Every structure is written in structure tokens, then in C-alpha cells.
């Protein structure tokens, strides 16, 4: 087992956060999809386990050969160790469980949806971060174009100051005009209140994944309900093929979304997303219930991106000798749902295909049972 260095000694770090407070280097926060920044010594989020800070060596000044060491000086627990090395640990085990999960489908591959190009077209996971009280906007649905505009406003303020000092009247006028326009935009479009959720982005699509990703219908409904709870004037449209509300209490939740939160379920696949000159996304879709092609202008569009097998699974599977299915999920048999093609190696969760939380949790216990059978009988149970 290879353990990567975090350059912080886990047994000493008390997660007090003094290091991050003093660290001079700001880095776009990957966990929040770059919607805000954190420091070069960081923790993804407050409740992360283990509760230990990590240094990002690609940005930390020390690792870039510059002078710093502020975190080591600040840390009273003496947990910083710039010399920490990769560790290799040999484990002698009777059973292995593969629970490597999934990664998000790269929505830029669907160019007609404009993800990555249109600022107010985001993925459902970005929406989770926006709705999170611990996220970049503390739970407020600020449009990503506004977040960018606010950053530009801060920059313009500095430039205007400099232009004033330099008596650079030409640029001053230009900056002031841009500032005025941006401020008007921020004022007009600060909060996203008209939302479109697009289902099956990369799933049930022959160009990408043929399968259904199982959990996206529910998280879109959930996000729409939470948005409405946060901002009562929010309107949400969910563009779907089938609303697959198959879990315990799911159908009831969907009905409540419509009746109580006023969500509109629109049966139809979105063909294309464009935007107007104020970054409002316009979706073009076929309403199959009215049998007409329509368009709708929205504040923000949330893509229910598919559950994809993680890229790293191929070398792992090769090393362990386990078979993958055509989608690169770990192959299992429907009647022996935890067993891989290699006796003693089990898998659970989204590593073997899309699953929702309760099924994943149940499967985790099941995989533990299969592993326990092997461990407790010295391998005899493999015959099951």
C-alpha cells in the first residue's frame, strides 16, 4: 500500500487551523470547483475525516523553492514536516474489498450543453457546494457569473485607484464604464431564482454511457427543494425522460416536490443550451407532453452528470486480476452481488455500478460479511 505524504504529521495535528490562517498562498479551491479559494495548507471541509491539514506541494512556497515556512512557525503542535516521504506499507490480508466509488462524467464532452463555456451552466455537484452552508457562498445561490463579476469588480477597484494616481484618464473611463455595467449586472442577476435541471447528462446516451446513473433524479429533486427552501421565490424545472423514484419514500418525495415546493417536471430531452448577452442560459427542448419544441430562458442550469467509473480503476483491476464490465465497473454476478471474478476479492458501492446511499451502505456491510466469512473460516467460505 502506498501512502502519499501530506507533509503534516497526522498524529500531532489538532486541526486548529492556525497554519491556514497565516499561510500566504491562495489556491483555487478544488473541492468547491474553483468557486472560491483556500490556502496552500488546507482541509477540504470542516468535518473531514481524518481531521488533519494537508500541504498542496504544487502551490506551497517551500516546495516551489521560495522562502516561507510560516506554517511550521505557526504550528504549536509541531506537526509540519516538509521532509515527509511517500510510505509503502505491506499488509498481509485474507480478503480485499474494492470500494473505489465513481467519478463525475465530464460534461464538457457534451458540447451542445456548453458546460465549461457558459458560466451559469454547472454540474449537480457544484450545485451541492453552492447550496452548502459550508460552501463558497454559504448556501446562497449566487450565480457563478456573479461570483466572477464580483472578483472582477475587486480587481477593477484596484485598477481605478491606480489609474487615478497615474492620471491615466483613458483607462480610468474604460474601467469605470465596465465597473458600472458589472455592478448593474450583479444587482440585477445576483441570485439564481429560475433554475433548470437537466437529467441524464452522459447517462442513457449511446454516445457516452448507455446505463442509467440511478441517483440523479433524486438529487435534482432534492437540490430544487432545498433551493426553494433557501429562496422562496425560486422556480425550478426538471427536464427528464423517466423520473426514477424507486427508493423508499422517493416517489412521495417527488410528489411533495411538485405539490409543496412547486417544482415543474418537464418530460423532454434538452437539445441545446445557449446564452443571452447577460449570461442567462436558454434551453431548447422538446416538450413531449405538448409535442412541441420550445425554449426557456433561465438564471442557471444544473446538469445531472452521470456516474462514471473512475479512471484509476483499470490499473487497479489489472493488478488485482479482477474483471471489469464494458463500462469499467467491477464485474459481479446478480446472485452473488459482492463477489468479483477473483475469490477473496469483493467489491461494494459505486465501484460496481451506480447506487444510492442506502444501497451503498447496505452493500458495504454485505462486503464486510463476505470478507468476515473468509477471515473467520480461513478461506473455506470462498466456496459459497
Amino acid at each position, binding site marked *: 500500500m502506498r501512502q502519499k505524504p501530506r507533509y503534516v504529521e497526522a498524529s500531532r495535528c489538532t486541526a486548529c487551523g492556525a497554519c491556514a490562517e497565516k499561510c500566504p498562498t491562495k489556491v483555487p479551491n478544488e473541492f468547491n470547483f474553483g468557486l472560491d479559494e483556500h490556502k496552500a495548507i488546507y482541509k477540504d471541509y470542516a468535518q473531514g475525516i481524518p481531521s488533519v491539514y494537508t500541504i498542496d506541494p504544487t502551490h506551497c512556497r517551500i516546495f516551489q523553492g521560495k522562502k516561507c515556512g510560516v506554517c511550521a512557525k505557526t504550528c504549536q503542535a509541531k506537526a509540519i514536516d516538509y521532509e515527509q516521504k511517500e510510505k509503502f506499507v505491506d499488509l498481509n490480508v485474507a480478503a480485499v474489498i474494492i470500494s473505489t466509488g465513481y467519478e463525475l462524467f465530464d460534461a464538457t464532452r457534451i458540447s451542445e450543453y456548453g458546460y465549461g463555456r457558459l458560466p451559469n451552466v454547472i454540474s449537480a455537484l457544484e450545485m451541492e457546494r453552492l447550496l452548502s452552508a459550508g460552501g463558497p457562498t454559504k448556501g446562497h445561490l449566487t450565480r457563478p457569473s456573479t461570483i466572477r463579476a464580483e472578483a472582477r469588480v475587486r480587481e477593477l477597484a484596484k485598477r481605478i485607484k491606480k489609474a487615478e494616481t497615474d492620471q491615466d484618464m483613458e483607462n480610468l473611463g474604460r474601467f469605470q464604464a465596465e465597473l458600472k455595467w458589472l455592478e448593474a449586472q450583479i444587482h440585477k442577476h445576483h441570485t439564481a431564482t429560475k433554475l433548470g435541471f437537466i437529467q441524464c447528462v452522459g447517462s442513457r446516451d449511446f454516445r457516452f454511457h448507455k446505463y442509467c446513473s440511478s441517483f440523479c433524479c433524486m438529487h435534482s429533486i432534492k437540490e430544487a427543494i432545498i433551493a426553494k427552501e433557501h429562496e422562496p421565490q425560486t422556480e425550478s424545472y426538471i427536464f427528464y425522460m423517466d423520473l426514477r423514484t424507486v427508493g423508499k419514500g422517493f*416517489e412521495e418525495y417527488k410528489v411533495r416536490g411538485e405539490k409543496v415546493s412547486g417544482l415543474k417536471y418537464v418530460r423532454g430531452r434538452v437539445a441545446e443550451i445557449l446564452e443571452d448577452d447577460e449570461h442567462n442560459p436558454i434551453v431548447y427542448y422538446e416538450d413531449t407532453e405538448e409535442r412541441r419544441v420550445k425554449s426557456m430562458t433561465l438564471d442557471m442550469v444544473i446538469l445531472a452528470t452521470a456516474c462514471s467509473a473512475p479512471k484509476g480503476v483499470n490499473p487497479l483491476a489489472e493488478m488485482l486480476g479482477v474483471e471489469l464490465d464494458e463500462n469499467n465497473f467491477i464485474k459481479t454476478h446478480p446472485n452473488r452481488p459482492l463477489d468479483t471474478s477473483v475469490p477473496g476479492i469483493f467489491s461494494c458501492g459505486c465501484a460496481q455500478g451506480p447506487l444510492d446511499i*442506502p444501497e451503498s451502505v447496505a452493500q458495504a456491510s454485505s462486503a464486510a460479511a463476505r470478507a468476515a466469512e473468509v477471515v473467520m473460516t480461513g478461506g473455506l467460505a470462498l466456496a459459497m
Partner: protein
Amino acid sequence: MTGNQKEEIRIGVFICDCGSNIAGYLTMQELVDYARTLPNVVFVQENLYTCSESGINEIKQAIPTHNLNRVVVASCTPRTHEPLFQSACEEAALNPYLFEMANIRDQCSWVHMREREKGTERAKHQIAMAVAKAARLRELSRIELGISHRAVVIGGGISGMSAAMALGNMGYEVDLVEKQEKLGGLLNSLNIVLPANEPSSRLLHDLAARISANDKIIVHTSSEVTKAEGYVGNYVVTIREKSAENRVKAGVIIVAIGARALKPEGLFGYNGKSVITHLELEALLKQGAPAAKNVVIVQCVGSRCAERTYCSRICCMTAVKNSILLKEADSRNKVTILYRDMMMYGVENEDMFRKSKELGVRYVAYDPAKLPQVGEDFVKVYHQRMGKEISIPAELVVLSTPLVAQEDAANVSSMLKVPLNENGFFLEGHVKLKPLDFATDGVYLCGSARFPATIREAVSQGLGAASRAAIVLSKEALFTSGIVADINTETCCGCLGCVDVCPYGAIRFVEEKEICQVNKVLCKGCGGCAATCPSESAKLDGFSSEQIYAQIEQAFAS
């Protein structure tokens, strides 16, 4: 509980800086000086991190050195750190329940970051409250319980069999109790199972053979569990087998009673002949394909409606599977599925769905407000996508009905004191994080008794429930918490207020004495009874009225 009232109370207070989390916003020296003035406090120490190895050692050393018999730590939340400090006390031979915490970080320095003076004042109050309570703490003890390393699995369908098999393989003795004369449950009525594409009988036969070959598993068919008494680790379960009754000791019980298919009496012209259910179709398919050339399958019959609000999860797959089998039997057969949403979630189901379309199965979405009309040899349906009513020839109509709760689910629920939801399915401990547990320790859940499940899911949940149960079975003994409720037999008037509020079924009414009594093993120390009791007869050890009133007084002291 030992009474040591006369002993001199000697309290040690440890105040944590938490790096700068506390020390950065409160004036620590003031807190230390203040703590020294509090009654019974004989030792005060400030730590950089009380939870660090050196902080813990300072607690362990101070207890014997200063002869401390109570310890207070003013730091963060007991939720994460109380067990650590309690074990430090225990290692220094101090009863862990003679320990108290004041949360001056989360509840003080973090919320008063810009108010050093007021925050420091508040922290003083919090420390004084903890000290006041500590002076009134009593030693408590954890009860050690023996365990029966045996499991009872109620229900011998696919999930119950899987659970029994896993426990048997781990080396635990299992009583697998099935009501019918043979194992298998609903699988006995099925024909071919997809996506495995094998006869259901073969799957069942394999599993049943492995179960009978496992000498740890005792199968009781034509049997029923009629009584279960006791608590986690120590149940006595009565199994009625034919006319004999047997009592077995068991550490855990797994509920795997499954579900049954709804019979659609009065719906869509159901008659059991030309309008049938999937179970009836499966019986026909077992004997070869039915003669009908035109088959219409109707989804959501008796589900996703006012009467039964839920989606039964597996009926779409059943319909798609049977449509494939009908097409494969004769490709000239015309099969149409009338649906609302095709719930073919995941990889295998979507594959199956696509295959059926490739074979020519026709799908027509209908509007629940305009239900299909079943006629003599046709079905009329408003075709939503075409916007008009169409008529489809049909010699055979198959109704996809939901799985509904077993008729005896309510009995099992009251026998084991575990809850059902509004649809009669068992209600798990937490819908996301504890899908196979109940709030009651020692009882677990799997399969369609929880919610309709596919074979894959039922097997997985059976194994999972076995895994949860093995956590108990693998222990030599269980320890209860010292924080449990107690009811004063002298003053209790038997009003039953506590019985009603207890979420764990830990309090029973003793009829002959007309009082209520706490089962300390089942009690989880929530204090609901103590807060409810009008005569203060119910008290929670470690949170007695005397202790809490003392804290409240300190909170309002100037």
C-alpha cells in the same frame, strides 16, 4: 453505585487553549485564576492541547499527585472528546463518570470571537457550571452482559437464506424460521430470473443445498416465531414448529419476512384468466408460453396512487423481463407495456430495457389522470405522446401490481418492538445511514420486509444484516453505559408517562406493583422519561435533577 458522600470533594480543572482556537479569543489567565476560586477546586492547569498526549498525561499525573476525585476539562465538545478524557481518568483509577466537560470552544470562543471580555465572562460561567455539577457526580458502573452467540432469522426467502448462510459461514449457529413448508419465499413462484437468466428454481436449489450442508444452520419450516423476550445478546425466542413449541436463546434476531404481491381485485377487470398478475403469468410461462398473441402489460396497478403512494421498485423490471420472455418464445407475439415512468435504474436494468425494445416490445406512456380501459379483447389508452386515444388488441392483459407488506408484519413489529412505516414496511434505524438496523439494538432487517428489493439487493441486504448482527455475535460480552435511567419505586405512581415517551421500549409497567421499571440494558440514557415524569421518580444517572439544578443556579449566579 457506591455512596461516598462524606468524602472530601477534590476537583481538578484542566483548561485547554486548543492552540489559538480558545486562547486566541479568551483571556486564559483570567479563567485559570477564576477556576481556583471555585468551591472544591484544588488544582487548575492550563494546557496547550488537553487532548494531546502531553495533556492526557498531565491529567493522569495530577489525579494521584493532588488526590483528585473529580475532573473537569474546559475545552471542546464531549461528542468527540469525552471518551478520551474519561479513559484518562479510568487509567488513573478514577471512575470515568466522575468527569465533566465545559465546552468553551464551540459554545464560547467560536461564537464570541470579537468579544473577548464578554466571552471570557461566559466561559467562567460555563466552568463554574461544570464544577458545580462535578461536585455532585456519583460513581456509576457499566453492566457487563453475557451473550448468546446464536442468531434467529425470521423468514426463509432469498434474503433470510443469504443472512443465515453468511452467519453459518462465520461459524455462528442459526435458526432459520420459515412459515411455509419449504424455503424460498416469493422465488418459489417465479419462472426465469433476469439478468442472471436462469430458472429461479436452480438458484433456490443451490442455496437450499448449501444451507442444508451447513451444520451450523437449523432450518425450521412450517414454523413461526410466536414470542421474543429479552434484549440484545440475550433473547429467548419461541419457535412453533407444527404443534411443538421450542424456546431458543439468541443474541440477535434478523427480520426477513419479505412481502407479498398485491392481488388487484376490482382493478382493470382483473379476473385471473384473461386479466392476470405477473405471478400468474410466471406460472403460465413455467409451463410454456401462453397462447395469447397480443399481450398488454399495465404498470403501476395499485401503486403510485392515493391508496398506495409508493413506487414498488421492482415491477418495471418484472414487466420488461416477462416481455422479453414472451418475445423470445415467439417473435411474432405483440407485447405492449403501458407505463408512467420506466424505472429501469442502473446498468443491468437499462440493458434489459434496451434489449426488450430491440426485440420489438412497444412502450406507451399513459397519464394517471386518464387510466387505460381494459375491454373484451383490447385495451384503450390515451397515447400521451401522440395526443390521442388508441386501441390495442389484447387477448391477455397482465397487471403489474406492487409488493405490499406481509399480513403478519404488524405482529412481528409489536413482538419485537420495532416500528413499521405508513405502508406497513419495517422502518429502519436511519433511512440513509442505518438501512439494515433498527433503533433497538440486536434486531436487524433485510429484503422486501424493508422495501421491495431485487434478488441482487435482497442477497446483498441479507449478507449486510448478517454483518451487522455479527458485530454483536463476535463479542465476548456487552457493556451497557453507566448513563441509564432509574425509577424510584417508592414514589412512582404508574402513570405510564415514561413508557409512552421511551423510544427504545426500555420501560415496562409492572402490573402487580403498579409501577414502571427500566430495563437498564435497553435504556440508552436519552432522559426522555426523567423529563416527562411528573413526580421526578424517573431520574437519569449522570444527569440527576440535583446536578442539573446546581448547574442552572451557577448559570444565573453573578
